[in-house]
């Protein structure tokens, strides 16, 4: 029996036929995530427990087969795509909230728990899980940990790594390790392994349980929509807020081009004749929100806002946010396809960088839209293209140039979507050979045979023969 068929039979015996997909048609559903890269896995398995995950990893490792973890498949950088084939470990059936410990402000959850469901289950106690990616209705905690996900409100509250105190992981040899726990920190001398595994994109270990911090729901939230006739005025507002020492909990910018599509799709009440808007939340005690909302409004007006609206109540606030949260779906009104970039720049550089990005789009013949986390300089330029017209390669080239603009401004190639396949070859834009070699050594300490999510993050040309070899050998051996 060929090794792969033997592995399939072995895992079917261990997990039951209902938890193993071998059918080629069924497997096509697992060949992509939210990004543009595709590759079909050879097997898809659905573990229901840590012990099953460990058994899968042991069996796959013994067979020399790559292992790729997958949550909801909403990622945008190809992190869950089995680029070198192998076994996709889909965590959709490990979705129990194992423990809610309100007094310690912690919860322990399985990796398949959906981000928003966790927050909803905590609301009765007055708490929530702060990171709120746009995909939070679908994306899983395991995926959030793998990608170190952000979201609009991470401006004040921090990204996933700031809200994870412990992980249970399955290592590349199938052994289980508990890293961290409910305590807020390890004592000096015990290294912060949790912090290294968060954001490692499935290349160091598989996560089987996550201990998260719970955040107290604020007493009051003020939502403001500032409307501008020039993009530069909105950008100026972001700088002025920072200079005034105000940290909104979210500060999102949408340009007029995107606004019109969003408004047509959602009816959120956005002004369709403006050049840009800022959607901002301030939160805290009632007294703090009153003061901060007043200061934010004054700063917006001083920077040239045509008008500033403040949501009168919760339904109005939800309506304003509904537009932003459903914005990506609305982009289908503009063009058949769009490519969402993720770059970071110093927030003082928003206006000139947006101009440069527009020029890059013109050069490539594409219209660029912008809706992004302005408060922390995390840009999400949207390249609108038509795949049927064969425009994808040109759109990718345009996106590459956009990222170079971000790097030239002193920024980063990714703020929250991760490197994965998408940005793998862009890593040398911000890291030296020595930097990448050091990352390789960290990978080797956890994942010596390179079978965990191979050919991701670190440019392939850099990988040493040993690590590249195993995945390549696997393909040749089929």
């Amino acid at each position, binding site marked *: 029996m060929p090794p792969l068929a033997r592995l399939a039979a072995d895992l079917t015996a261990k997990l039951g036929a209902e938890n193993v997909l071998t059918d080629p048609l069924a497997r096509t559903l697992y060949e992509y995530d939210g990004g543009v890269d595709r590759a079909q896995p050879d097997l898809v398995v659905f573990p229901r427990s840590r012990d099953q995950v460990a058994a899968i990893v042991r069996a796959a490792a013994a067979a020399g087969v790559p292992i790729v973890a997958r949550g909801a498949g909403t990622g945008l950088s190809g992190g869950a795509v089995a680029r070198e084939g192998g076994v996709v470990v889909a965590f959709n059936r490990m979705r129990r909230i194992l423990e809610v410990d309100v007094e310690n402000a912690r919860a322990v959850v399985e990796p398949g728990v959906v981000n928003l469901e966790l927050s909803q289950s905590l609301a009765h106690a007055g708490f929530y899980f702060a990171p709120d990616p746009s995909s939070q209705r679908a994306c899983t905690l395991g995926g959030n940990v793998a990608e170190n996900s952000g979201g609009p409100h991470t401006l004040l509250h921090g990204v996933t790594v700031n809200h994870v105190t412990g992980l249970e992981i399955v290592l590349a040899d199938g052994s289980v390790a508990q890293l961290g726990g409910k305590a807020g920190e390890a004592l000096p*001398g015990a290294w912060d392994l949790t912090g290294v595994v968060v954001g490692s994109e499935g290349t160091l270990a598989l996560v089987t349980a996550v201990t998260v911090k719970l955040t107290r729901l604020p007493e009051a939230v003020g939502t403001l929509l500032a409307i501008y006739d020039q993009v530069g005025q909105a950008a100026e507002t972001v700088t002025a807020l920072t200079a005034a020492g105000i940290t909104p909990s979210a500060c999102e910018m949408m340009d007029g081009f995107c606004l019109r599509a969003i408004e047509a799709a959602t009816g959120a009440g956005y002004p369709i004749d403006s050049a840009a808007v800022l959607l901002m939340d301030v939160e805290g005690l009632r007294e703090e929100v009153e003061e901060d909302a007043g200061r934010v409004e004054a700063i917006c007006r001083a920077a040239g806002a045509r008008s500033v609206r403040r949501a009168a109540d919760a339904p109005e606030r939800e309506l304003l946010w509904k537009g932003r949260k459903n914005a990506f779906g609305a982009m289908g009104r503009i063009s058949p396809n769009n490519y969402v970039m993720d770059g970071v720049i110093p927030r003082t550089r928003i206006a000139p960088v947006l101009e440069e990005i527009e020029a890059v789009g013109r050069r490539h013949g594409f219209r660029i839209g912008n809706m992004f986390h302005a408060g922390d300089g995390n840009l999400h330029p949207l390249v609108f293209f038509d795949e049927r017209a064969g425009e994808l390669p040109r759109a990718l080239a345009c996106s590459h140039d956009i990222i170079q603009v971000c790097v030239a401004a002193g920024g980063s190639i990714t703020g929250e979507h991760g490197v994965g396949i998408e940005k793998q070859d862009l890593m040398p834009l911000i890291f030296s050979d020595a930097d990448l070699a050091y990352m390789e050594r960290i990978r080797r300490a956890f994942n010596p045979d390179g079978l965990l999510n191979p050919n991701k993050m670190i440019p392939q040309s850099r990988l040493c023969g040993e690590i590249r070899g195993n995945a390549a050998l696997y393909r040749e051996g089929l």
Partner: protein
Amino acid sequence: MNVSAATPAEAAACVRAAGEAGISCAASQCGHVHLDLRPMQAVRFYQPGDLTVGADAGLTVTALNALLAGHGQFVPLDVAEPERTTLGAVLARHGSGPLRQRFGTVRDFVLGLEMINDRGDIVHCGGTVVKNVAGYDWMKLMIGARGALGILTGVNFKVFPRPQGIESACFRGLAWPQVEAIRSGLLHSPLRPLAIELQARGGERAVTVTYAGSAAVCGRYRSEMSRLGAPEITEGAWPAATPPANAVYPPAQAVAALQAWEERHRQLSVTGRLGVGAFHVEPAPPPPPVAPAAAALMRRLKQELDPGGLFHGEDCGLSA
């Protein structure tokens, strides 16, 4: 042997030389070569509008905060002896102070790191912007590793507006159950204090809550806290730094653990973060064991990242 380095390149050359000679090297007294980084005090960049700053590891916390104060900003590193504690030492020890209740530890606001590795290469992690997920975040590994994997030479921080209108409320004469009631009461309140500090010594216990804001906001804090007791209010007092934590607990287990330890040590002295469960305790309780699987992972990392054992992981005066 003491060697001073004024630049990362000098530090790298020193590490390479030590590696070739087969002798250990540390930014503290515990290496055969003591690499003194105090001449490295450059501020590499400061962008007040972006709330970011980068500096050499030899700069002291006091010197960095003196610069940031010019723009009403600061790094919330309220460690003990900031005037002689270098940024490198804060990172190596995972130092923090009372303000971590609100701002987290240095782990939560380091944006980028520069380090000399075992091969004498200058390696970087992270960057200079406030949000960044490119590559492995091995900064986390180095924070608190006490120099076991390399020599830190530079660091980039996210900085914060320095809070205005500081006030504190001190609850005195507390029994342990009252201490726990205050902790739990604050957790379930809408308040977000800057610091929640416990001081206990010889059976006397006090909790000091520090907050900031306008007169209206401070008034609200006072009224909420009057439900938890009758605190003494002091305006303008920042929380005092304490010695480094040597006992950490899940926050809701801390009081019971400290009470049990006090029953064995009547002269127990405790200072630290009641809200997050990190304390300096005298006499120190035994540290919790590192789980065997995590310890094995640490050994594998040490073997991979410093196979020649060039760097010592012992803490023996890193601030020097």
